[in-house]
């Protein structure tokens, strides 16, 4: 007997404002199968999930092309509610639970079992009494199914993180008609033993005939449970392999492999020196979602150092920590002198400059002119662009305008004039304003986080070219953090890969895709050892 497909997606295409993110994806999940979907950040996995769930973001941006079959019937999922009615469940990466409610209440939220009482007979069903006993029975059953030995009346607040994940799952399987369950990186926050338990319960669920779509970065988990594997990269499926023939190396290579376009032509060891400009020792940064758990790293003078890794592994935290934006411990030496941490002002005085990954939140004064954005930090910290009038420090309008004009011209910021508000600029031009502000500080080291996030492809190249120009012509040391490996490999001299808040290793941009893939998945050392 042929197993039927729970979900089939045929030739799915989706673009956001002309930017193609899915280029003809085919995906099919059979009933009772665990189907793993792997890919880097930005490969298009979330967009695909949004399509499955009919998220509003898809429809508000013009819908998608292609066909979705559910239970072998074509369906049009217009909203998350449609998806739920069809029997599609989702276990979220961030927990969508109400902390003050008990497990039962969370599982049964908005699907409560009710019974009639006197009032509800008169005033209608919204006044029905909750049938707590039935609800608890159901909840306990769901909890037992996934093998979670916890009482159903315990409030969510105070449960260990791992348990919350299980409650989410219990909630989904308690829905009677559930046919397809999507796990979006469920193990990201779990400890190893919790993760094992989760994988076990996934197998149990699959055995009951529920189709499971398992999105993850952890390749060993994929190998452990998946019945079939689909690898996505840049909005295409690169291929499907069966777990028998798959190895961690193979998947890693498929995930990362791409044509690398080196923007820097390998020229004779340019201004590279071995002099260490900044030395980071045991850096720990408490940045929510991007925790750094002890990193040692040396930054050489005149290089472009890339910091890569998957989202949430802590790569973003490094620059934020050194610049004093989040609570940091550890030691940072610049030219052998120890820097004071947790103090943005000291960091700037010590000639470090930072272009934040959160352009609109941290990087810009949106309702302030371009020129004031460019000179603000320098004016406040270095007392530049000021005139002294009767011993009062007044801003030097003429000097500011002159410098802003120069920056606008040099960095090619497309704007109406230096007094335009930055809110009205495009992403790429906003990024240039941020870079201009950092350059105004005349830094020794420029930290750039996610410089191309949220800007279109043409502008991306301009920003990267700009960074290369700064490095080559001004000899500026640049530390670039990016989720896009291709970008790092196109301009960096060395690339440090961060995994789970620690340095996994440093690679040359010309190293093999396998090495990059393994390092990003945190498997590099395990496999290196295995080879020996």
């Amino acid at each position, binding site marked *: 007997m042929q197993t039927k497909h729970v979900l089939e997606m045929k030739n799915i295409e989706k673009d956001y404002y002309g930017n193609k993110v899915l280029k003809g994806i085919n995906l099919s999940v059979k009933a009772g199968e665990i189907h793993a979907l792997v890919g880097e950040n930005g490969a298009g996995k979330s967009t695909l999930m949004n399509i499955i769930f009919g998220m509003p973001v898809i429809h508000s941006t013009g819908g998608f092309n292609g066909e979705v079959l559910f239970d072998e019937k074509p369906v049009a999922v217009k909203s998350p509610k449609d998806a739920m009615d069809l029997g599609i469940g989702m276990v979220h990466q961030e927990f969508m639970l109400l902390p003050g409610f008990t497990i039962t209440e969370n599982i049964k939220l908005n699907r409560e079992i009710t019974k009639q009482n006197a009032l509800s007979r008169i005033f209608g069903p919204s006044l029905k009494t909750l049938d707590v006993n039935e609800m608890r029975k159901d909840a306990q059953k769901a909890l037992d199914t996934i093998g979670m030995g916890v009482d159903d009346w315990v409030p969510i607040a105070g449960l260990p993180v791992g348990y919350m994940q299980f409650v989410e799952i219990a909630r989904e399987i308690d829905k009677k008609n559930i046919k397809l369950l999507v796990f979006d990186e469920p193990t990201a926050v779990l400890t190893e033993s919790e993760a094992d338990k989760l994988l076990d319960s996934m197998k149990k669920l699959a055995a009951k005939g529920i189709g499971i779509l398992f999105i993850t970065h952890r390749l060993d988990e994929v190998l452990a449970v998946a019945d079939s594997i689909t690898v996505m990269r840049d909005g295409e499926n690169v291929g499907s392999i069966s777990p028998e023939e798959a190895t961690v190396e193979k998947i890693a290579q498929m995930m990362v492999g791409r044509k690398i376009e080196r923007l820097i032509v390998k020229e004779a060891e340019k201004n590279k020196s071995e002099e260490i400009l900044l030395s980071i020792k045991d850096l720990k940064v408490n940045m929510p979602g991007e925790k750094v758990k002890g990193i040692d790293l040396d930054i050489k003078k005149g290089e472009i150092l890339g910091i890569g890794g998957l989202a949430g592994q802590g790569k973003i935290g490094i620059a934020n920590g050194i*610049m004093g*934006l989040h609570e940091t411990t550890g030691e940072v030496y610049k030219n052998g002198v120890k820097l004071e941490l947790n103090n*943005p*002002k*000291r*960091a*700037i*005085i010590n000639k470090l400059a*930072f272009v*934040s990954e*959160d352009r609109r*939140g*941290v*990087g*810009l*004064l*949106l*309702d*302030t002119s371009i020129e*004031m954005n460019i000179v*603000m*930090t320098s*004016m*406040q*910290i270095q*007392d530049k662009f*000021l005139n002294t009038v009767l011993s*009062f*420090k*007044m*801003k030097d*309008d003429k000097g500011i305008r002159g410098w802003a004009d120069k920056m606008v011209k040099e960095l090619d910021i497309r704007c109406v004039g230096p007094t335009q508000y930055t809110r009205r600029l495009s992403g790429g031009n906003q990024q240039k304003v941020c870079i201009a502000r950092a350059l105004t500080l005349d830094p020794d080291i420029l930290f750039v986080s996610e410089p191309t996030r949220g800007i279109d492809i043409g502008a991306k190249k301009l920003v990267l070219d700009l960074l290369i120009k700064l490095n080559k012509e001004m000899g500026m040391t640049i530390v670039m953090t990016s989720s896009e490996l291709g970008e790092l490999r196109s301009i960096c001299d060395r690339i440090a890969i961060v995994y789970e808040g620690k340095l996994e290793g440093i690679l040359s941009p010309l190293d093999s895709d396998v090495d990059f893939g393994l390092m990003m998945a945190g498997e590099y050392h395990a496999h290196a050892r295995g080879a020996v």
Partner: protein
Amino acid sequence: MKKLWQNLIDKYGYPKVSITLMLIILCIIAIIQKQDMSGLLKDSMVRMGMNGILVLAMVPCIISGTGLNFGLSLGIICGILAGCISVELNLTGYKAFFTAVFISIPFSVVVGYLYGWLLNRVKGDEMTVGTYLGFSMVSLMSIGWLLMPFKSPEMIWAIGGKGLRTTIALSDRFAKILDNMVAVPLSGHLLPIGTLIFLGFCCTLMWLFLKSKTGVAMTAAGDNPRFAYASGINVNKQRMIGVILSTMLGGIGILVYAQSFGFLQLYQSPLMMPFGAIAAILIGGATAKKAKISHVISGLILFQALLTISLPVINKMMPEGNLSEVIRIIVSNGVILYALTKVGGND
């Protein structure tokens, strides 16, 4: 026509355009009713001068990111206290007024510091907390006015000989001192240009301050605190400076108000004063996050002219009893209500 309307709204914002229209309609009715137009002009200018600095006091608060200063009553109380001390010292004329101003400043700085300290602990709820802090302090000071050891017979209750009166006449002290400094006659009325000059002077100082290094840092801290922090600006300190400046201007503002009005009003009178000032600056086009000196001036003109002109116009339309007083309250509170719905700007 529709396009012109849209352009006007885009350029000046909805409140400004609609209030201007209302004002124009009122003016036309006033002319038809043959009201004393130069009298109305003089009254409007008096009110603008009286309230000007209180409105200006909103600017540093908004710019530093603490929102509209609903707790302006704190500064007003400091100003009143200084005014009482000046009377107690038996000063008259310019000396009395400027002494009061100078005495008010240290009070305002201390009170503003404490107020700012509180506001830095309730980020996001500054306006609600400010309102109720203002209310509580007005009530607390109602006891204070009774207990403070003032001796001057001009100020204390005639019967019992203790505690300050609710209204203290300044006619022998510094009433009209700024109004009459430069007074320009216009068909039988004296226009209070002196007060307006003083207001202009204060506005200029504020404008200069906003161009200084500290002023620029304050603007940045108010516009985007996270940006400011990343730029090494001490956001809490900038907010503190904004609140202290605002409180100081509140103190000076009430003294200017009192000299023009001719009386110091104690007890419950500072309670609702912040609302008028807030309404004026909002109508001028400011929001809880953005304010300019031009908003102060245009808001003052629109709000105060509207209040001044609407009263006699409505009075003539409905001459019954004290209905006009009721109407005045409805109009002023209505405008305040309307302005408050525009706190977040037009989006």
